[in-house]
């Protein structure tokens, strides 16, 4: 990809060539790009690469760097066998979260955007209402839902079900029993979604739908309405027009929405951590930080291996996003 752009840029000469600048200007530009790049590379890019390296080592993180020992694939072997229960539960929950986010709030957000794009009365009011949960931190969202929706003694759910009396209460966030479970080959323990994890999905969805709606609404605004009218005149019904005309033309925004949903599902952390990570709510992101510090130091190697699992799951989508976003600039 980089070979493409080095040949493409001089040909177009849309921007000023670097070589035409005075030395003082060159120094200024070097300073302006250099400092931010150094900060970003030192504290984001380098740690990302170090995660990969450290996942092949054993280190408690307390002693000096000289105590880092190379152990090959042992951390991976460990997390996939010895800690198999945690990892499989975490991966399973992440998959559930991802599938749910996609088919639940993401599609719902797209539907809301589509409906609000019709110039109906009160669009702006609806829009601001749907969007406002997005300004809240997921940690705050979790605590708010815990105190008024899931609260065993007074929350919305138990009140509606008439279960607020002591002894009859349902502890929504504490019940880690699996709704159903199944065995898959090579795993000793059955996997399945816990009740409390399924319940907390509602709180995550509440915030996610508005986010997707705003992104998609912006995409729809850039859509040429005459295309839709033409399709309607040709006799296509509404669903057909959306599927065959609107949706394909919005491909860039579709990619963004899909990638954002996937990344959000993988980086979900705050809401579970703020609820003090109850049993049944395992996620890969939480497994990473469990190894940050522990009794007698952390387990940097194992934590990094979990980090690499996360990286492997998202890297393909990040590349997809980049290609989608920067494609125009190559040509």
């Amino acid at each position: 990809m980089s070979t493409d752009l080095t040949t493409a840029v001089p040909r177009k000469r849309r921007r000023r060539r670097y070589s035409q600048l005075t030395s003082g200007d060159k120094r200024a530009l070097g300073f302006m790009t250099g400092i931010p790049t150094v900060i970003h590379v030192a504290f984001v890019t380098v740690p990302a690469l170090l995660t990969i390296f450290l996942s092949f080592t054993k280190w408690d993180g307390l002693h000096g760097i000289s105590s880092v020992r190379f152990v090959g694939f042992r951390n991976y072997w460990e997390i996939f066998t010895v800690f198999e229960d945690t990892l499989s539960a975490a991966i399973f929950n992440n998959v559930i979260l991802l599938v749910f986010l996609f088919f639940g709030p993401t599609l719902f957000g797209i539907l809301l955007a589509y409906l609000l794009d019709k110039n109906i009365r009160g669009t702006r009011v609806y829009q601001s209402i749907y969007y406002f949960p997005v300004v809240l931190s997921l940690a705050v969202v979790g605590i708010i839902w815990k105190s008024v929706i899931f609260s065993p003694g007074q929350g919305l759910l138990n009140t509606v079900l008439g279960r607020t009396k002591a002894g009859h209460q349902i502890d929504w966030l504490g019940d880690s029993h699996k709704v159903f479970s199944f065995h898959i080959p090579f795993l000793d323990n059955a996997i399945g979604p816990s009740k409390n994890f399924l319940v907390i999905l509602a709180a995550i969805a509440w915030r996610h739908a508005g986010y997707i709606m705003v992104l998609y609404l912006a995409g729809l605004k850039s859509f040429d309405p005459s295309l839709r009218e033409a399709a309607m005149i040709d006799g296509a019904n509404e669903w057909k027009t959306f599927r065959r005309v609107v949706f394909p033309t919005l491909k860039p925004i579709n990619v963004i929405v899909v990638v954002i949903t996937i990344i959000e599902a993988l980086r979900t952390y705050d809401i579970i951590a703020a609820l003090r990570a109850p049993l049944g709510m395992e996620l890969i992101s939480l497994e990473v930080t469990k190894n940050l510090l522990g009794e007698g130091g952390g387990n940097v190697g194992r934590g990094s291996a979990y980090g690499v699992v996360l990286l492997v799951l998202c890297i393909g989508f990040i590349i997809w996003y980049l290609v989608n976003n920067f494609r125009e600039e190559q040509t």
Partner: protein
Amino acid sequence: MSATVAGGQVVSEGVRERVATATGRRRPIRWSRVVLHTFLISTAIVMIMPIALAFYASLRPYAETSSRKGGLFTFPKKLSFANYSSAFKQGDMGRHLWVTFLIVVPALILTLLLASFVAFAVSRYSFRFNLVLLMLFTAGNLMPQQVIILPLFQIYSRIPLPSSISPNSGHLNNTIFGLVLIHIAFQIGFCTFVLSNYMKTIPKELGEAASVDGASVPKQFYRVILPICRPALAALATLEFTWIYNDFFWAVTLVSRGNLRPITSSIKNLSGQFLTDDNLVAAGSLMIALPTLIVYLILQKQFISGLTLGANKG
């Protein structure tokens, strides 16, 4: 046209005609619109409900709401702000707010400044590494933070700082400075991406005219380009304020001392301390959310345009 667009399948033509003839008015009730608004209003109620309930709960004593059969859904015997004052005191929120202020202000200013530096350079001049740089920044910002936290934690606890900046650890971890730094490093990516898209739309003749007049590169940046970017900067500032204010992850991992943590991450103490008093917890979390809610109410337009600038390239 809009009548057929709005849920044409939901209401059959026949029904619509019957309604139109029965009412005999010039503007018949469009049933598809009624269905649409009913749906939109119910969605709005669902969206508001948790916050509205939290506010209602926060004004009432827990002893009252938890002892009655209707739970929160009862008429109040007593409404007061008592929960707020005790949550503020018990959660030591004054201190956490101050810490948050010390993090958000420098992080916000420096992120925008550094990002506009890079955006200016890559969008107005062509280097060989323009695209590589932009992709690196964007990729870094998209990565889940957990991927980098273990090495970052180790790097932080090994970079020494003078005790005037880091009185507790002598290192980068456990400091406000460290949190500001990681916010800058992580958020530069998104801001650069948005700003470079914005700057590309500025005609290049503007910069050229200035350079013919003898303006140096820094002067062009400061005098010509930056003022034009004011709307984009305002949108980004609103968005980044909320994101940095809402940070939970960096604070709980890179700062181990509870009293040095910014306010959003202090919510963890809240859920432990007052485990039984849900109304106090509701008051505390609403107080934590208040600054972002205010920003949203006042600067909603900037907030949304910040997000869409990032999604829809110029």
